């Protein structure tokens, strides 16, 4: 399992990849930063399309291990993370350092490019935004999602009854 909802521990990942034949271990931690574009960030909320994220993470790890003759361990955290918490942890071990560094770099870049994970930023000014959506943020509590969901559901049911769906 590459997705976890509990705190990540890089030591566990290093233990999984180290071996007497591998003289280099590189690791990468992505942690929650307290600022974005000059604004104060309080926390992040990560969500995922979990079945696909698991498949895609497995593919990325296999590609890195194949390309650089190394062992790779990877975990990505899901849920609410506070500033300083680790969101992603990667460890790569190989006979020599070039391969370990390259594999580590490859894995984090491919995660960002391919794995279906999303995050919402909670700002100090009360605004909440989906990262990368390009949309204006909302003030926390300004909307009533349950009520809105109910309205949309009723409209969908109506359309379904008419054979639109």
């Amino acid at each position, binding site marked *: 399992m590459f997705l976890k909802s509990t705190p990540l521990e890089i030591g566990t990942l290093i233990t999984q990849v180290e071996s007497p034949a591998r003289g280099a271990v590189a690791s990468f931690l*992505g942690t929650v930063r307290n600022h974005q574009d000059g604004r104060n960030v309080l926390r992040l909320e*990560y*969500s*995922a*399309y979990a*079945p*696909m*994220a698991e*498949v895609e993470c497995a593919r990325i790890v296999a590609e890195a291990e194949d390309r650089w003759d190394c062992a790779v361990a990877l975990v*990505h955290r899901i849920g609410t993370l506070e500033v300083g918490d680790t*969101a*992603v942890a990667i460890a790569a071990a190989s006979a020599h350092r070039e391969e370990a560094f390259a594999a580590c770099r490859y894995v*984090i870049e491919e*995660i*960002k*490019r*391919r*794995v*279906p*994970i*999303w*995050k*919402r930023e909670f700002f100090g000014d009360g605004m909440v935004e*989906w*990262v*990368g*959506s*390009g*949309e204006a943020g909302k003030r926390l509590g300004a909307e009533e*999602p349950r009520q*809105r*969901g*109910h*309205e*949309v*559901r009723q*409209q*969908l049911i109506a*359309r379904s009854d008419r*054979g639109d*769906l």
Partner: protein
Amino acid sequence: MTATVSSTLTIQVLLFGSYAEALGRDTLELRLPGSATIQDAVARLRSLPGGDRIPDRPLCALNLSQAPVDSLLSADDELAILPPLAGG
């Protein structure tokens, strides 16, 4: 005997992040013509209340793999509409 060709197909659609928020739900079923593509499913979603926040050509996954929007759909496919990815 002539093979019968189903004239419609039903697929499961999964919505995530800002798209799920826009449509007020994260799953729905769509009934589409038998020859429908992902693009047809996206057009249908975009016609729903809040659907205008889904782009014309969003990132999509068909049965757990990213797929181009001209991919043909089959009955019981799982189509996921993916907002801009933000892992890491």
